[in-house]
C-alpha cells in the first residue's frame, strides 16, 4: 500500500552511476527466479548421483540397544547404510555446545533425531530400505514440560551435564532510585504506587522457509569433497563438517546452492554431514532433500516461552521498575539457546527506561524438538509480554496506550537495562506516534465482500458478530552478534578491464538467502568505485568467512567489509593514476579519474590497463562485551533497531475468527541502502510476526510433534494478509557503515504483539497466550 521514505539526514551523492546505494536496482537473480532457471539446493543433479535419506527416532527419549542394518542393505539399489559407528571424526555438532551427535549413539533425545542414513539409486528405494533398519529402543522417561526441567527429580536429558538441564541463565539487575532493602532476603525491593503483572505463554513457531533442506555432496576421488548446500553461514558449516568427517578445510569445500528462505532455520546443520558421509562411503555424488514433514524435524524452531512480568509505575505511568522471569524451552540440544537467553534477558523489557530492573532468563534442555534461531531471536517472545503489560499499565493509570509508550520510551543518550549507552537514534516516541497518526482503514461496508471478513469465503458471517479492534506495539532488537563475539566479515574486490570496460568483481562468503545481499554488494561497489558493471562471485569457502546471515547483520557487516575492500582498491587505483600523471589529489568519478580541479586526467579503464587491482579485507564492527554474570550489566550489543506497529483487526467474536484489516509500521533503518528491499523485509517480517500471533504453532504433545505439514501448520496466505502502510525513517547510525541499521528482524518482533493487542481490544479478553486460538476468543 503506501510506503514513504523519510530521510532527515541522507547526504546527496554526486555521480551518475545508476544502481548506487540509496537506489533500488533490481536483483541480479530476479530473471533466473521468474523463469525457473535459478538453481536451488533441491534442484541439483549430478551424473551417477544417488539419493540419501535419514532414519529418525520415533521416541522423544530412548536408549538404543541395537541397530540391525542387514535387511536394509539387501534392498536392490541400496549403496550404503550408515550409523554412528561409521562416523570417522568426532560425532558431535552444535553452534554453541558440541552436544549433538550427527547420528545417535546410545541415546535418542527427541522425536526425529537422526539415527541412520541410507543411500540408494532412487529416493523411494532409500526410504523403503530405511524402514527395514531394525532399531531396538528402550523407551526412557522424558522431560516434556520445560517448567519441570529444573526440578530435582526431572530426568537428565544429557547425563553428566554440568548444571543438569539448565543450558544458560542470565540475570539482569540494576539500581533503583527508590531502593528499599528487604529485611530478610537482602534483595532490593522497589516500591511503586502502581503495580501490574501478568503471565504470558508463546507457542513454538517454525521458520517454514519454502525451500526444503537439501544439497549435493560430490566426492573428489582423493578423500575430499565439495558440498553444495543451502545455508546461512558457509564457514561455520565447514568447521562442523570437517570436525565430523575428520577432514581439513581444504578437503571439504562448501558452496552456497540457491537458498529458498532461511529465517534462522538454516543456522544449524541439516543434510550437510549426512550427505558427505554417504558420498565418501559410496564414492558417488549424493543428493539429499527433505520432504516437508521431515523438514519440521530437520531444523530447530523458535523457542516456546513462559514469561512472568511485573511493572511498577508512578500514578502518571512513569515506569519505576521492571521484573521479568523468562523460561525458554531449548529442546533436546542447545543449538543457539544460550544466545537466545542472552537476548531474552538483555532486551526482555523492551525499549523503555526502567530505573530498577530485575530480570531472570533461563533456557533448559527437554526432550522436545530442539529450538534455536528464528528471526527476532529471543526478543519476539519477550515482546508479547512487555507490550501486553504496557497496555495493562496504561489502562490502570488512565493514560493513552501510545502516550504511555512515548513517555517511557528510550531516546538517544539513555541507558538500557544492561547499562549500555544508546549512542545513536532511538526514536521510540516518534515511531509509535507515527503509526498512531496514520489514517485508519475505512470502516466495514454495509455489504462487505466476504473476502474482507473473518472466515472469508467460508461464508461464516456477513458482518454479524464482527467487532473491530486496534492494537499497538513498539519493540527493539540488537543487530549483529553480541556479548563479545568476534563478529566480522571478509570481502574481496577485484577491479579490472574486461572487453574494454572496467568491471568490479565482489566476492564474499556471506549467504544470500533471498534478502537481497547480492544487490547490496553490487550497489556498494558501484558507489565506491564508480563502475557500472559489478559481478557477484559465487558464494563459497574460497574466501574468508562472511559471518552468519542472521541477526540483521549482513548489510552492516558484510556491507562494511565490501566498502572497506572497495576503499583499498580505490586507493591503489588512485595511487597508480597519481604515479602516471605525476600528481595526487585525484578521485574517481563515474569511470574516470578526476583531478582536484574537476578535470578528467585519465579513464579508469586506461589506468587499469596495466593490470587488475585486487584487495581482500576483513572487517569488524565495534567490539561488544560479555555481560556481568551477576548483574547482567555490560555493553552487550553493537547496535539497536526500533520498530512500531499498529494492527487493526475484525474479530468474529462468536466463532473466534480474526481478519487482520491493516498492519502498519514505522521503522528506523538508519540508511536505506536499497529502499525497495528494505520495504520488502518489513512487509515479510511483519507477516511472520502476525502469523505467530494468529495461527503458527508447532504443537508438541508429550514430546511428539502433532502437525508436521503445511496442512496442519498454517502460515499466512495472501488472503490472510492485509495491506500494509510503511513509514521508513532514516536516522543514520554514526558508528555504522553509511549509517545503516539492521532491518530484517524488528518488524517480526513488533507486529505480533500489535495484532494480539488488537484482538484483545476487539474482544475484551486477556489473551495471555499466542497464537490466539478461536477457543481463546470465544471462551469455549
Amino acid at each position, binding site marked *: 500500500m503506501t510506503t514513504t521514505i523519510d530521510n532527515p539526514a541522507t547526504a546527496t551523492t554526486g555521480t551518475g552511476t545508476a544502481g548506487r546505494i540509496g537506489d533500488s536496482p533490481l536483483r541480479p537473480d530476479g530473471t533466473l527466479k521468474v523463469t525457473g532457471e535459478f538453481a536451488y539446493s533441491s534442484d541439483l543433479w549430478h551424473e551417477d548421483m544417488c539419493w540419501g535419506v535419514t532414519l529418525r527416532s520415533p521416541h522423544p527419549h530412548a536408549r538404543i540397544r541395537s541397530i540391525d542394518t542387514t535387511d536394509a542393505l539387501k534392498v536392490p539399489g541400496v549403496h550404503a547404510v550408515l550409523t554412528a559407528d561409521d562416523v570417522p571424526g568426532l560425532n558431535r555438532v552444535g553452534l554453541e555446545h558440541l552436544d549433538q551427535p550427527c547420528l545417535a549413539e546410545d541415546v535418542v533425545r527427541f522425536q526425529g533425531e537422526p539415527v541412520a542414513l541410507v543411500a540408494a539409486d532412487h529416493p523411494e528405494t532409500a526410504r523403503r530400505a530405511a524402514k527395514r533398519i531394525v532399531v531396538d529402543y528402550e523407551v526412557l522417561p522424558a522431560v516434556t514440560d520445560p517448567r519441570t526441567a529444573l526440578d530435582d527429580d526431572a530426568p537428565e536429558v544429557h547425563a553428566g551435564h554440568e548444571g543438569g538441564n539448565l543450558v544458560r541463565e542470565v540475570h539482569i539487575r540494576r539500581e533503583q532510585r527508590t531502593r528499599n532493602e528487604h529485611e530478610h532476603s537482602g534483595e532490593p525491593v522497589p516500591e511503586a504506587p502502581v503495580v501490574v503483572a501478568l503471565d504470558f505463554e508463546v507457542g513454538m513457531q517454525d521458520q517454514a522457509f519454502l525451500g526444503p533442506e537439501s544439497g549435493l555432496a560430490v566426492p573428489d576421488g582423493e578423500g575430499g569433497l565439495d558440498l553444495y548446500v543451502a545455508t546461512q553461514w558457509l564457514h561455520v558449516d565447514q568447521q562442523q563438517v570437517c570436525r565430523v568427517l575428520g577432514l581439513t578445510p581444504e578437503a571439504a569445500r562448501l558452496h552456497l546452492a540457491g537458498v529458498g*528462505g532461511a529465517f534462522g532455520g538454516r543456522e544449524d546443520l541439516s543434510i550437510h554431514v549426512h550427505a558427505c558421509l554417504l558420498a565418501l562411503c559410496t564414492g558417488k555424488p549424493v543428493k539429499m532433500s527433505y520432504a516437508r514433514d521431515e523438514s519440521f524435524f530437520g531444523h530447530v524452531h523458535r523457542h516456546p516461552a513462559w514469561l512472568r512480568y511485573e511493572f511498577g509505575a508512578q500514578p502518571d505511568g512513569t515506569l519505576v521498575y521492571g521484573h521479568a522471569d523468562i523460561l525458554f524451552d531449548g529442546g533436546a540440544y542447545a543449538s543457539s539457546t544460550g544466545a537466545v537467553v542472552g537476548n531474552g534477558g538483555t532486551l526482555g523489557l523492551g525499549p523503555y527506561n526502567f530505573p530498577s530492573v530485575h530480570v531472570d532468563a533461563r533456557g533448559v534442555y527437554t526432550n522436545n524438538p530442539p529450538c534455536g534461531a528464528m528471526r527476532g531471536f529471543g526478543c519476539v517472545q519477550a515482546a508479547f509480554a512487555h507490550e501486553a503489560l504496557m497496555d495493562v499499565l496504561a489502562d490502570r493509570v488512565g493514560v493513552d496506550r501510545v502516550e504511555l509508550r512515548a513517555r517511557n520510551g528510550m531516546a538517544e543518550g539513555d541507558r538500557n537495562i544492561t547499562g549500555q549507552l544508546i549512542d545513536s537514534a532511538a526514536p521510540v516516541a516518534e515511531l509509535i506516534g507515527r503509526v498512531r497518526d496514520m489514517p485508519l482503514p475505512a470502516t466495514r461496508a454495509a455489504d462487505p465482500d466476504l473476502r474482507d471478513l473473518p472466515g472469508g469465503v467460508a461464508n461464516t458471517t456477513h458482518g454479524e458478530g464482527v467487532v473491530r479492534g486496534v492494537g499497538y506495539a513498539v519493540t527493539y532488537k540488537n543487530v549483529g552478534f553480541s556479548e563479545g563475539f568476534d563478529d566480522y566479515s571478509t570481502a574481496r574486490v577485484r577491479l579490472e578491464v574486461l572487453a574494454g570496460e572496467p568491471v568490479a568483481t565482489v566476492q564474499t562468503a556471506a549467504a544470500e538467502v533471498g534478502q537481497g545481499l547480492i544487490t547490496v554488494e553490487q550497489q556498494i561497489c558501484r558507489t565506491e568505485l564508480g563502475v557500472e558493471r559489478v559481478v557477484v562471485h559465487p558464494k563459497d569457502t574460497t574466501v574468508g568467512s562472511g559471518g552468519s546471515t542472521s541477526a540483521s547483520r549482513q548489510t552492516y557487516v558484510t556491507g562494511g567489509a565490501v566498502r572497506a575492500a572497495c576503499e583499498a582498491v580505490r586507493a591503489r587505483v588512485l595511487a597508480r593514476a597519481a604515479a602516471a600523471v605525476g600528481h595526487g589529489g585525484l578521485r574517481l568519478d563515474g569511470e574516470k579519474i578526476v583531478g582536484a580541479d574537476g578535470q578528467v586526467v585519465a579513464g579508469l579503464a586506461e589506468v587499469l590497463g596495466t593490470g587488475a587491482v585486487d584487495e581482500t579485507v576483513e572487517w569488524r564492527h565495534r567490539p561488544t562485551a560479555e555481560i556481568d554474570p551477576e548483574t547482567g550489566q555490560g555493553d552487550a550489543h553493537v547496535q539497536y533497531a526500533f520498530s512500531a506497529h499498529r494492527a487493526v483487526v475484525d474479530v468474529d467474536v462468536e466463532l473466534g475468527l480474526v481478519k487482520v484489516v491493516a498492519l502498519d509500521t514505522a521503522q528506523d533503518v538508519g540508511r536505506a541502502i536499497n529502499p525497495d528491499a528494505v520495504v520488502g523485509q518489513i512487509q515479510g517480517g511483519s507477516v511472520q510476526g502476525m502469523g505467530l500471533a494468529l495461527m503458527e504453532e508447532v504443537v508438541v504433545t508429550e514430546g511428539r510433534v502433532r502437525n508436521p505439514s503445511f496442512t496442519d501448520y498454517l502460515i499466512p496466505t495472501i488472503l490472510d494478509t492485509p495491506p500494509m502502510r510503511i513509514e521508513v525513517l532514516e536516522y543514520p547510525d554514526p558508528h555504522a557503515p553509511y549509517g545503516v541499521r539492521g532491518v530484517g528482524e524488528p518488524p517480526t518482533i513488533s507486529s505480533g504483539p500489535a495484532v494480539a493487542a488488537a484482538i484483545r481490544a476487539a474482544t475484551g479478553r486477556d489473551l495471555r497466550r499466542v497464537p490466539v486460538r478461536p477457543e481463546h476468543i470465544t471462551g469455549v
Partner: protein
Amino acid sequence: MRIELTVNGTTREADDVWEGESLLYALRERLGLPGSKNACEQGECGSCTVYLDGLPVCSCLVAAGQAAGREVRTVEGLAEGDELHPVQQAFVDRGAVQCGFCTPGLVVTTHDLLERNPAPSDPEIREALAGNLCRCTGYEKIMDAVREAAGAQR
C-alpha cells in the same frame, strides 16, 4: 514404466518411471525441468503449479503416469525466447521476488488468473493466489506485480 507427454510444446519421454512418482518428480528429476518447486509435496503451497491440458494443477498431486499423453506447460515454458512474459517481468520489476522459491508457482497461477480475468480486483487477486504460499514477501509486492501485469497485458 515409460511415459510420453508433451512438455512446453515438445514431446518428451521418461523411462523407468516408478508408479508412485509424481508429475513434479518426473519434471524435476527425469526431464531436467526443476523450475516447478517442491516446497510441500502435498498440494498446500502451490510452488509446483503447472498447466495440465490448460488447467493449473499442483504437479505434486498428479501421478506422472496420469500425465501420459497430455500437455504440460511449466514456468520454463512461459517466456518467448529471451523475452520474459509480462507476468514474469512484473514480478522482477516490482520486487515480488525474494528467495524466489514460491515464484514459479505464483507466476503460473497469476498467468492463469489473467488469462481468465484480465482485470482482477484486489479481492479477486487474493482469492486466486490464496493457494500459493510465500514466506518472504508478505505478499504486498506480489499484489503490486499482479496489478502491474494486468495493466501491461491490457
